């Protein structure tokens, strides 16, 4: 088995390098080497300090300001300005997700890049820096445990308790135990759910505010928590419905009418934020035939990050139903009424509904497939033109098909630490203390014996978990 893996890796190695090369060409830095990208707010400041650059920059913005920007861009002066700006730091500047002045940065980016493209392109270059952050160790450790000791996991949690295991519920629990996650989740739920209560069933929710609260949740909460809620793996309908409900679809996703997808895309492209997130999704989740995982650079994280980045934009994607055997993802749009553009519309929709890269990435996350391959390209500095030093022996077969997955074997991995905690030593803190000398005191308070000690026990549990993992790794 191991030899087969090594063989397949050697086989695909040159193809990986090929795809890396093509990506660096796409990002437009291939010609004059990859400079470390400056953020576009700084790049714009730098340009404004230079009198020549700043005057051309002003001309360029005027060229793009009008409605008829395409004919304006054909203008000689505009072309000359663009040529000068291609040498400026504005040309290959990038933005960071959730950065300060993100919108301003994106506006600066598009002020140059809208002029670089001729007409409307199907895929645009992402203004965001390549994803280099790893999903935290928790996720990887969990997958390591699941790979090595799946039998224990199953015995501990899924079949013993008699209750069906629900990874999406576990994800909600994990979120509620973290103060930031609990707070921001409660905020977006309350915002998105407002108006849809029993008293005022007709009043529509405030979609804009709901989207904003969702964006804040996915920008600020650690991905360990948010991705677990969004990409949990399910073996029954209750779980899949909970997963579908994660983004409060009644407000954030569904609408009375289903617009045409190309219309929706046009709306999105008028907004620099939505346009950027869509370009980022297209770049990181584009199906790549030459890669093993079907993702660009075999980078699952980048795809998941840009998928989550779309939530709260005009093109908010979601699971279309509560099917647990096979999930389908789509934005709220259809290809009805596409006319001559039916083919283009179907192509756009396929990138969501039939995207094997996105599917593999979500499944690999939810089912805890060994992500060691996935983390490899991530450890490489943000320099796609540099060849990553792949360690051949540590790469397993990463492609995930629906049929390959043995549901439930490792779906509840995260519960291992939780159950350790429950069995762990308990600190004897205080018993419930009822107010003294109170003749009116009601004695109906039921004490939770020994359970108020969770904060003490959890510290122990983490240590136990970590040492367990290290021990396993040593083997």
């Amino acid at each position, binding site marked *: 088995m191991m030899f087969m893996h090594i063989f397949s890796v050697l086989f695909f190695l040159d193809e990986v390098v090929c795809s890396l090369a093509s990506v660096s060409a796409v990002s437009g830095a291939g010609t004059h080497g990859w400079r470390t990208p400056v953020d576009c707010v700084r790049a714009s400041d730098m340009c404004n300090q230079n009198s020549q650059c700043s005057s051309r920059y002003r001309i360029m913005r005027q060229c793009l300001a009008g409605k008829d920007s395409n004919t304006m861009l054909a203008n000689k002066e505009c072309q000359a300005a663009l040529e000068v700006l291609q040498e400026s730091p504005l040309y290959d500047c990038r933005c960071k997700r959730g950065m300060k002045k993100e919108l301003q940065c994106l506006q600066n980016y598009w002020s140059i890049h809208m002029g670089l493209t001729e007409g409307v392109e199907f895929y645009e270059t992402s203004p965001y820096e390549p994803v280099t952050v790893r999903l935290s160790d928790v996720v990887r450790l969990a997958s390591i445990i699941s790979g090595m000791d799946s039998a224990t996991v199953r015995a501990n949690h899924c079949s013993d308790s008699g209750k069906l295991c629900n990874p999406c519920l576990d994800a*909600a*629990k994990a979120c*509620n*135990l973290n103060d930031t996650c609990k707070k921001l989740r409660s905020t977006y*739920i309350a915002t998105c759910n407002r108006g849809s209560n029993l008293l005022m069933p007709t009043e529509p929710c405030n979609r804009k505010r709901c989207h904003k609260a969702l964006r804040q949740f996915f920008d600020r909460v650690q991905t360990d928590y948010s991705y677990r809620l969004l990409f949990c793996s399910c073996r029954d309908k209750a779980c899949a419905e909970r997963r579908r*409900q994660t983004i409060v679809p009644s407000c954030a996703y569904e609408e009375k009418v289903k617009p045409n997808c190309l219309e929706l895309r046009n709306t999105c492209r008028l907004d620099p934020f939505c346009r950027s997130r869509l370009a980022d999704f297209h770049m990181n989740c584009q199906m790549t035939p030459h890669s093993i995982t079907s993702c660009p650079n075999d980078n699952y994280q980048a795809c998941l990050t840009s998928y989550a980045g779309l939530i709260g934009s005009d093109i908010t994607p979601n699971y279309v139903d509560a099917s647990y055997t096979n999930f389908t993802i789509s934005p709220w749009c259809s290809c009805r009424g596409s006319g001559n553009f039916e083919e283009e519309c179907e192509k756009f929709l396929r990138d969501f509904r039939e995207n094997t890269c996105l599917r593999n990435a979500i499944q690999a996350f939810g089912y805890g497939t060994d992500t060691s391959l996935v983390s490899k390209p991530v450890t490489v500095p943000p320099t796609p033109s540099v060849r990553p030093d792949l360690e051949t022996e540590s790469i397993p077969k990463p492609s995930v098909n629906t049929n390959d997955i043995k549901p439930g074997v490792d779906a509840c991995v995260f519960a291992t630490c939780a159950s350790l905690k429950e069995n762990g030593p308990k600190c004897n*803190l205080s018993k419930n*203390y009822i107010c003294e*000398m109170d003749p009116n005191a009601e004695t109906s308070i039921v004490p939770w014996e020994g359970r*108020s000690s969770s904060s003490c026990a959890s510290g122990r549990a983490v240590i136990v978990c970590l040492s367990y993992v290290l021990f396993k790794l040593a083997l």
Partner: protein
Amino acid sequence: RTKRERKGRKLCGLQEVEVSVTQLGLGYESEETVVFRYCSGRCSKRRRTYDLALESIQSAGVLKEPTRHVPCCRPLHYEEDFSFLGNNNKYYTIQELSAQDCGCV
């Protein structure tokens, strides 16, 4: 008196416990877990002149109704709203569920 002031009892402060939403007994059915923070602990050292006077008057038999002459450990502020998905797949928001800090009042 010694019975009341057993040693080792904590002073009034914030405690927490993990419970399911259903266990809150508020009528919501949900398997979601929440950290419930509550106030618990001793307040007998926080008695004011008011409490001492009241106790004397009470024990002299002047008052007809029962009174409280020891401060009570209660929340001073509550956490922000808590939202969750019920077992019926509807979202709910509860206000002032959990204590944020405690005091003897």
